[in-house]
């Protein structure tokens, strides 16, 4: 049993590394400084690991609006991944702060289409929770690329 499990894991990791290598080599996506705002540690930590596995640098994580705002003003990130609902608070203030600094961001939320954001944020890109890592990576690349063309 142990042997089998190990073999499986090894195969999985190899496969993923292959994919990352391909991804990196094909699109030659540059490494980005990312901050993650999510009140769920498991999710935030999982995303951090995945992003780091794909060459990005997660420079901070926050679970509350207060700590997220502190994080945004303290660090200079290139892109932010925002969960909308933070233990009853909304991430809107953080998003506005980022928009003011022209820092690209996108939402990853379990609220789906039902949540109506204020008009100034209604055009912000969104991903549905649970988000696939491929979609998150593509979103980071797209936003940063657009940001650079500006």
């Amino acid at each position, binding site marked *: *049993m*142990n042997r*089998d*499990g*190990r073999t*499986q*894991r090894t195969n*999985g*990791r190899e496969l993923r590394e292959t994919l990352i290598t391909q991804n990196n080599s094909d699109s030659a996506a540059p490494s980005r400084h990312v901050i993650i705002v999510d*009140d*769920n*540690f*498991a*999710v*935030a*930590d*999982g*995303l951090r*690991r*995945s992003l780091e596995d794909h060459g990005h640098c997660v420079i901070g*994580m926050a*679970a*509350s609006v207060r*700590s997220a705002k502190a994080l945004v003003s303290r660090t200079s990130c290139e892109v932010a991944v925002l969960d909308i*609902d933070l*233990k*009853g*608070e909304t991430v809107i203030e953080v998003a506005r702060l980022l928009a003011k600094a022209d820092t690209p961001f996108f939402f990853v*939320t*379990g*609220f*789906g289409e*039902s*949540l109506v954001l204020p008009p100034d944020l209604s055009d912000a890109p969104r991903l*549905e*929770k*649970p*988000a696939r890592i491929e979609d998150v990576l593509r979103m980071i690349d797209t936003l940063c690329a657009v940001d650079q063309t500006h």
Partner: protein
Amino acid sequence: MRSASPEFSTGPHTSDATARSSREPRGSLEREWLPVPGESAIPSTLRHRPRARSIVLPLVVLVPGLVLSVMLYVWTDNYQAASLARDFTSLAQEREHRIHETISVNMQKLLSTAALFDASSESGVSHSAFRRFAGPLLADRLGVRALEWVPRVRRDEKELYESRAKLEGIAFGIRPVNRGQSADNEATRDHFPVFYIAPRKNNEAAYGIDLASDPVRREALERARDTGLPAATAPLELVQDTEHAKSTLVFVPLYSSTPKPATVDDRRERLIGFVLGVFRLPDLLLGATAYLDTEDISVALMHDTEVVAGRAPDAGRSALARAHPILVGGRSWEIYSAPSQAFITARTTARPALAMVGGFLLTLAATGYLYVTLRSSEFRAALAHSERRFRTLVEHAPEGILVVNVETRSLVDANRNACRMFGMNRAELMHSSLTELSAPVQPDGKDAVTSAQEHIREALAGGTPVFRWLHIGRDKREFPCEVRLVRLQSTEGPLIRASITDISERIRSEERQARLMRELDHRVKNNLATVISLVEQSAANTTSGEDLRASLAGRIHSIAIVHSALARSHWSGMQFRDLCLMTLGPYNLAGEAQRIGIQGPAWHLPADACASLCMVLHELATNAVKYGALSAQNGRVQLTWTSDRDCIQILWQETQGPPVKEPQSTGYGIRLIEGMIEHEFDGTAEIAYPRDGVLVRITIPRDSAQREANAA
């Protein structure tokens, strides 16, 4: 019948009832539900019965009215008949009187003539003197047509009288009335020849006729002789009368002694002759009624049953006809009078019939009017009753009801619920305008006036629009409503009824439902994201497939139990103690002493904190089972938490386990514990590894532990 449905026959009491109810299930149901009609529980004012009054009262008028009309007819007709009879009687009596008078006058003439003879000697009255005396009496020619002197001629005096006649210049020869017919006692009796006649003209043929030769004349003659009174013959036709009219001869006897003899024998002996009056009856009648209108009444003179003068009566033609008896010359006569048809017609009017018809019409009109009036009042009563019933329906309807006159743009009616909804009394509500009662902008995004016009137009076209509307009450508070419009039949102009239901509560409920659904959706997705993350991280940190399976199952299970517990509490959170019991309960194996002790004050966790803390406890317990106190037979865990002003401290202390060695590397479980506490709660998790048991100290700032509660 009773045993027909054995499944219902549970007992002697119920079998009767069920048998009845199976026959008439509805009836018995209604008997149970509703009070029995006629019971005093039902006030009589709630009833409206059509009254028999509207039939009976008109009949009470109709029947006596018709009877009175008929009585009026009978009475008027009787009055008219009586009046007719009175008129007729008066006229008839007048004629009778005149006839009496005429007869009486003429009898006087006869008696006067007799007195002339009485006053003279036997041969004292000459023919010419007789004529001179009688002439003026006969001048009027009405009544006595002729006066005659009829002497008694004894058998031996016959020649004497014939010679005397010659002397007087009268062509005279005693002869019987009917020539060639000789009387039976011709030879033995006296003669009574007509000797003098006045007037002479046309009467010559009568000279010398022996009146005793004819039985009719002789009867009267002998009666006059014997009684000494005037006697009349039965009606007869005179020989000289060419018109064949009936006449009667009245004999007045004259005796040789005055006063007249007392006995019949004496009278027979002393008789000297008769003064004879010839009454031509038609002339008498004519004379009596000369100046009277003969059109009205027909008058006839009758003897026995024979009409001797005047018009013959039509037998049985009129009930009014009367016969008046008179006695003339010892004979009974009758004056018969009958009204003419013209007389009856002139006095018979259509008045009784008209009165009756008028009575009928009046009665019918009164009856009809009464009936119509009563029926209409009954109808009005029924209408009022129905009005009250519908008023109750409207008044106690669960919705607020407003009735709007579209033309005058005013409220014409409102029920109690409407008043309650708008917080106004009826008068205030009725004086409010629709604009005052509606929010300026309506749920469909249009302004109130435009939106209302659209809906009202639809209702006027016969539709029944149902829509949401924001109303404003007296307190200026807006409340969402569902409004149904319908057009009402009316003569006062186009009316619209609005049935208004306050749906604030429904909307709140719907919103709550939607929020719960969103919440659930959100949590499910968060849970799935957590699960995916756990799978990935667990896989990256576990070397054994069995370990991976076990750790994953435990972690996902902890998510599951928190989810179901939170769902039960509608995501309002739970007590930390309950969370501990729920999470750690499975590690207290049955039959063993409490291996995990739990102690701490009440601490209500917000929903969002539950999942993480559950996961933390789960990881601690798993670690303890794997490496710590719970892996040994007597190992124990003491979980305590304390709370002060700033933070909450949780202490996990393992005892009596195997000797503790600090691990070389931190596993995913430890990282989850530290990460969750630090990341999600801004707290700290310190894990110490003293020899006698692992010691975990978790500190959470109070404000972050209750963040959600504050935010909510």
